[in-house]
């Protein structure tokens, strides 16, 4: 079994790239048979062909197909117009998911940006900066599934009186508070899930913010200090405005992630106790209820929510290309 698997793996890792490289070499030999003037017209298409094929099959076609499916009935036979959307938006569970996605969008994005900024600015002023950054950044390397186990253990709850093995409830105990069922209690559970994602992603925001921070010329800050500006004024009036473009870009990445949030909710609560989100709800419609029509409508709603960010990204790139 293992020998078979290893052979398979080595085969895939060696043979597939070899085949792809052979593709480039062989097609180029073919191109060279053409008259010299037509060669540069044909060649680029052959180089982008494998990528374009994969992107078409796995991104472009499925997106269009899903939009189409969202207008068909459950069996995928009859055109039903906006009926699926009506059904989905009339569902109380879906509305809760939309509300939760808004929680994610606002809470997660704001907290990651703020923590990332605070950590970047503070770490910038100490000699052990790189150690701090490594430790904060480390959760980015682990899966949301593992992060969910880590935090499930932090949030662990025992009834009052029993020994609290979860770190947070033990801390509460220490201050004579009664333990909280963080993931079940409606007042805390969405915040608890969002916190897990914040813990994972803060390092991302911190590292980028920190790089941008290092790009601010020291003379500028020094000049302000000489003029009598306090550290707080320097931060608010100089650092923040100069970092604003970077923070905006980090923000767009976070917004996309907040709308797509899936793993943490799937693992920690399965969307129960009013914690469901759109991406998980879509998966449940597809996988548990086998209702591709409603699942497609949910996916399209998700896509619609992301379109503004998508347009923003494309516009930014066009601008960059223009000044390139």
């Amino acid at each position: 079994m293992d020998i078979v698997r290893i052979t398979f793996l080595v085969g895939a890792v060696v043979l597939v790239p070899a085949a792809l490289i052979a593709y480039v070499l062989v097609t180029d030999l073919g191109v060279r048979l053409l008259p010299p003037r037509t060669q540069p017209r044909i060649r680029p298409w052959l180089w982008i062909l494998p990528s374009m094929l994969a992107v078409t099959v796995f991104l472009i076609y499925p997106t269009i197909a899903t939009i189409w499916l969202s207008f068909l009935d459950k069996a995928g036979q009859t055109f039903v117009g906006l009926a699926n959307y009506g059904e989905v938006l009339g569902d109380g569970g879906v509305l809760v998911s939309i509300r939760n996605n808004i929680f994610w969008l606002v809470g997660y994005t704001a907290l990651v940006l703020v923590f990332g900024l605070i950590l970047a600015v503070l770490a910038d002023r100490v000699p052990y900066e790189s150690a701090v950054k490594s430790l904060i950044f480390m959760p980015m390397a682990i899966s949301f599934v593992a992060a969910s186990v880590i935090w499930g253990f932090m949030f662990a709850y025992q009834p009052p009186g029993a020994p609290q093995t979860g770190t947070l409830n033990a801390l509460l105990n220490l201050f004579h508070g009664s333990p909280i069922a963080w993931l079940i209690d409606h007042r805390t559970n969405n915040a608890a899930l969002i916190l897990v994602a914040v813990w994972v992603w803060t390092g991302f925001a911190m590292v980028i913010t920190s790089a941008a921070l290092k790009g601010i010329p020291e003379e500028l800050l020094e000049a302000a200090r000489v003029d009598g500006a306090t550290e707080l004024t320097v931060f608010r009036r100089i650092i923040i405005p100069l970092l604003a473009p970077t923070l905006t870009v980090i923000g767009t990445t976070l917004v996309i992630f907040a709308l797509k949030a899936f793993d943490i909710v799937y693992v920690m609560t399965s969307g129960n106790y009013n914690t469901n989100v759109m991406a998980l709800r879509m998966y449940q419609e597809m996988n548990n209820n086998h209702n591709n029509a409603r699942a497609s409508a949910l996916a399209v709603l998700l896509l619609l929510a992301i379109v503004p960010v998508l347009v923003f990204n494309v516009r930014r790139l066009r601008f960059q290309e223009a000044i390139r």
Partner: protein
Amino acid sequence: MAVGAPVVAEVAAAAPRPARVEAERRRIDLGSLPLNVALVLLTAVWIVPTLALLVSSFRPRFLINTTGWWQALVPPFQFTLNNYREVLDTYSIGTAFVNSLTIAIPATVIPITIAAFAAYAFSWMRFPFRNSLFLLLVGLLAVPLQVTLIPVLQIFTRTGLTGTFLAVWLAHTGYGLPFAIYLLRNFIGALPSDLFESAEIDGAGPVTAFFRLVLPLSVPALASLAIFQFLWTWNDLLVALVYLGGSPDVAPLTVNVSNLVSSLGQGYELLTAAAFVSMALPLIVFLALQRYFVRGITAGAVKG
């Protein structure tokens, strides 16, 4: 997917300015005690959860259920490897580890190879619709996977690929490509054009230029990208969940561990051990190649 793509260029614009005088900065601020306390405290808060997991994974069940993990830090030290033995023997975490490798390695190698071809063409070849196609790719960066799941699953079911590693490799290739091409084009496009002109004068065709010039010079970008793609595919839950169909023979660690969470509930001695097995390799990759990882995110060196 699509982690921070547009960030790359943004930070690149800020990075190349002259470095400031580090020593002076530290002299001014080192004295402030509250700053240091706040920072150390924040960092501690960040590592405590992982530490709790690691410590607990070595503790016997009866202790996990009755005492906090922090009590393991004082004598008598009672640690055990039984949790690891049990998750490996009974809960097929070992198989899941091999499955994760089987998924992640080809799902890293394949998209990077074809993305390099495309990035080269987008950077140094002229063809109609070049910019429009590239903008299309940038737009696709933000498309949520959920929009693609049903039709792609239908394709896989029709072709009999559902539940095979090939399906997951192909899907990860499609999903990873926009970011891969974007990152590589930023890098390859920034190589000096005289390089290609002199190569052409020397009679080197595009193929030679690609293999002899572009690839060797792009090693830093390729390395960053490889780390990203490896971590994404290793840590992915959704793609494996949907296209592998839940059979334990092919389930990667993420699927296996998330199943354990629902079947074991509070069995934290096993959950912590299983989770740590799933984290070990990405953490090693991260610690060993952190420099490339950070560089990939900030890409200060990518676009000159």
